[in-house]
């Protein structure tokens, strides 16, 4: 299928604000679907709650739109019940690693065969721009009017130490690059993770003196360093920067395969027949 055939054109324009990067990420997802060769029937998009959680309503694949923060837990059940499905999970920063942080680290650790795409826009857009666990220090949000005093998560590092199989980071405007990461993530057996830095033009941008979307896009770009360039930079130079690119790719059997293999190897089903 061609990438635009995955989109429900009749439901456009999107739900998102003008200049929001989510439409770009949705575009990347459909391009990845085309590249991965998936069908509508064998794919389930599990979404959380928040602006990004609405992505499923613009796509033609199966969808599961559950509760805030719990998408990975629903997805775990779907994947283990039917390993043939491509299960793609749309997470936000508030949804995926703030309220849902516990599910995130455990999905990474267990190495459930899911592809998680986390859009990080540094705040809770839908509820009015409050700070999340990824909001950069000193940022103004609607609940940090004097500047944010908590350090934010580096989600890719969190995924790495938690055991994710594949990790990449991109920015939303790099639509084709992001699509390549997502397609590669989908091709890996195990927990694959793509973080996409996305601009929240309505809240984060305006709260931080970036009135028009292009200013926010330029700022976002100034905060990232490609992995190859980062390798030559000092720790000091990399402070407050996010490294983009394919960050991690390691082998490892996914949970579902291992579960089935162990049962087969130990003859557990046969054992039951003898009982």
């Amino acid at each position, binding site marked *: 299928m061609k990438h635009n055939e995955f989109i429900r054109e009749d*439901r456009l324009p999107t739900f998102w604000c003008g200049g929001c990067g989510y439409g770009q990420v949705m575009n990347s997802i459909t391009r990845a679907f085309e590249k991965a060769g998936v069908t*509508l*029937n*064998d794919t*389930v998009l*599990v979404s959380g*709650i928040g602006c990004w959680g*609405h992505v*499923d*309503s613009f796509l*033609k*694949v*199966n*969808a*599961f*739109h*559950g*509760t805030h923060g*719990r998408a*990975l*837990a*629903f*997805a*775990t*059940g*779907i*994947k*283990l*019940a*039917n390993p*043939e*499905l491509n299960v793609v999970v749309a997470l936000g920063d508030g949804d995926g690693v703030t309220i849902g942080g*516990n*599910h995130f680290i*455990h999905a990474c650790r267990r190495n459930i065969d899911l592809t998680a795409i986390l859009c990080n826009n540094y705040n809770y857009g839908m509820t009015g721009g409050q700070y999340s666990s990824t909001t950069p220090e000193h940022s103004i949000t609607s609940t940090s009017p004097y500047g944010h005093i908590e350090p934010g998560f580096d989600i890719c590092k969190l995924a790495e130490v938690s055991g994710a199989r594949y990790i990449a980071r991109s920015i939303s405007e790099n639509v084709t690059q992001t699509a390549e990461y997502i397609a590669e993530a989908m091709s890996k057996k195990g927990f694959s993770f793509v973080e996409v830095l996305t601009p929240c033009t309505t809240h984060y941008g305006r709260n931080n003196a970036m009135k028009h979307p292009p200013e926010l896009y330029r700022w976002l770009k100034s905060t990232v360093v490609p992995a190859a360039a980062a390798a030559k930079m000092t720790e000091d130079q990399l402070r407050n920067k996010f490294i983009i690119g394919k960050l991690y790719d390691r082998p490892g059997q996914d*949970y*579902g395969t291992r*579960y089935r293999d162990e*049962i087969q190897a130990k003859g*557990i*089903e046969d*054992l*039951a027949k003898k*009982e």
Partner: protein
Amino acid sequence: MNTWEIRFAMGNEAIAEGALAAGARFYAGYPITPSSEIAEIASRRLPQVGGVFIQMEDEIASIAAIIGASAAGKKSFTATSGPGVSLMQENLGVAVMSEIPCVIIDVQRSGPSTGLATKPAQGDVMQARWGTHGDHGIIALAPSSVQECYDLTIKAFDFSEKYRTPVYLMADEVIGHMREPYVLHEAAGLVSRKQPDPSEPGGDYKIFDFERYDDHIAPMPPYGGKYIFRMNGSMHDEAGFGCGASDNADKFIRHYEDKITKNRDDIVMTESYNMEDADYVLVSFGCSARSAMAAMRLARQEGEKVGVLKLMTLWPFPDKEVAAALKKAKAAVVPEMNLGQVASEVSRYNERKIPVIGVNRVDGSMITPYQILDALKGLYLKGLSLKGL
């Protein structure tokens, strides 16, 4: 192959075996006393029958996983106790809103909070009914023996599949850990989830279009087949797209309630003992029903006309059965290990306003037959010798 066998086992084992007999092939849970044996047995038994067990990071994830697995076509269940049930409430609403069958075993213990972790209670009755926010119908069954643990677990799955709803099995610490013989029989006449008519074309499928069907239950195919569908915990239309229209919301919320209450005759299960001539009716359930049965037998030995109405279905509440039981009685006694959660419901269907006496314990110890009879002796049966105790 034997189609049945007698086993001597604890209630929790009978629950796990009942789930397997009902066709459950997915379990996700988080350990908690006094339910943990169910997880342990599920972890051992499910792989033997081609099922999957997973221990999740918490109860929120556990119920989410079983809901997901059920949407992918597997009969799914979890087991927990009060603190876990509290954590599950938000996602229980997803199962209600998306009409996804699943079974939640609540082996009740004393609360609130961590409470008396190893002691029995029956304090989750109202939590099961109203725990998740928003209006909805719910089914809750309460076993009072090891045999009922097995049989009602099978029933719980059947109701869950038939009405596309989450179902609680409300055991308690006494019933879960008590050992008794029970008959492990093959489940006959299991309900399988209604599927779309084969003539229905594939592609986009309206999984919430209940009005198309006489029984108001829309067929539910699994993910991965010829139908493409959207599950949605937000208010949605027939196709699962978010929908804020007030007439749509009204239709669906009333549907969640109606599909349970309108089928109450199918769902409500009670048992009557010596009710034909009973002047005094003991209305009880779970472990307290066992004390009520003993109290009835002792009273009958002394010639007093005491009967028992045992509730196996707690929700939808057996309103007609309770009303009928109270019709000719002089008084009703409701023994329960809480401060009157079922008694308050009984009072709602007490048309002649006879006295409804609560016998309540919340100290983690069972209600004794003596306590029940003592309540009657104090008010009515002054001649009771209670020598049999």
